[in-house]
């Protein structure tokens, strides 16, 4: 669902700009920080909309969530960044063309349970561990 957003050209402008002085770059990055800090976004998977009511008893769907956003310098507390991400950011500042920034990824995952009929009408209650994002951070 976020596909369109990822392709918008203004977002790439930072990268294709000719090299500028350090100060203007920091200004740039402030701008990128305003753009979208790394955070958890909502994606609700609806079993009902998939037409699965005849075999899934519960739930009607689940909030799947996903992580998206920038991990740019400076990484501050609200980004829930790992120590490794800070090192990754510093090295990226030194070799921007070779070393990528840290990426926005899940830091904690939750389990969900699904109750459904199988082909023989037995009932299965299954717990899917590490299934749903609980929090995101920069890695």
């Amino acid at each position: 669902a976020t596909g369109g957003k990822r392709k918008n050209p203004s977002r790439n402008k930072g990268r294709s700009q000719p090299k500028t002085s350090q100060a203007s770059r920091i200004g740039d990055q402030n701008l990128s920080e305003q753009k979208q800090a790394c955070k958890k976004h909502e994606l609700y998977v609806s079993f009902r909309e998939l037409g699965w009511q005849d075999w899934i008893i519960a739930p009607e769907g689940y909030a799947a969530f996903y992580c998206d956003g920038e991990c740019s310098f400076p990484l501050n507390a609200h980004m829930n960044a790992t120590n490794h991400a800070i090192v990754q950011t510093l090295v990226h500042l030194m070799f921007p063309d070779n070393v990528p920034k840290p990426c926005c990824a899940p830091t904690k995952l939750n389990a969900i349970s699904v109750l459904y009929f199988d082909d023989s009408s037995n009932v299965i209650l299954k717990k899917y561990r590490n299934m749903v994002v609980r929090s995101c951070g920069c890695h």
Partner: protein
Amino acid sequence: CALGDNHVHSSFIYRRLRNHERREIQREILSILGLPHRPKPFSPSKQASSAPLFMLDLYNAMTTEDAEEDTLLETTGKAISLNTLGSSRKNQHSAPYGYSRAPVAWTSQSPPLATSHDANFLNDADMVMSFVNLVERDRDFSHQRRHYKEFRFDLTQIPEGEAVTAAEFRIYKDHSPGRYENVTLKVSIYQVIKEYQNRDAETFLLDSKKIRASDGGWLVFDITATSNHWVLNPQQNMGLQLCVETMDGRSINMKSAGIIGRNGPQSKQPFLVAFFKASEVLLRSVR
């Protein structure tokens, strides 16, 4: 919660999907659920019961436990055990798919879910399955003039990599008024070892319970070892036999003993429930 619910129910299908897109999404999510295809059970109203309402109870307990664990972990960093199951009953999840649940009838009569014994299995379980009772032949008299019920469950449907940690056979007994009012009965469950054409099957006693005939409620028999044996040797699964006797060994007709069989209300039909623990990390098949 209601507000949260509305907020959460944003539709993820923003526009009418083309058929192949919908199929792709379904296939992707089925593979997340670890299912090769979408099951096509025959309609619930026609099927023999596999105790969906009991399983819904377990589902509620499991999801409430997860939610409480999350909030508690966030606030104190400590995990809790399922002993708080009792409290979990208050947050009953409504049955969304047309299961008319009479909460009073079922929950007050439902199997003793909140025993710590069950709670431990549920805590550890990655999966719980309740099985459809495939066959039930009431033989009023066997060759040795014994009343008994037969039950058979197909345990070959268990997904690979799952090991049985516990299995129970549950059957409901109504209080039986009349001539057995003050009698103590012994209800026994046997595993059928070998069947013969013209004489009683060879059986092995698994468990038995002494109850007053005037009592009513769920009887729970532990058949973990037998279930594991059937999973490993499906060809030796010849089902179970249940019989009721007085203390002096006289066999009693099921109906007069108040045992509810396949023809009882769906919420009281006998079923087998098994708890599983994944014995290996299941990886999604690479496509």
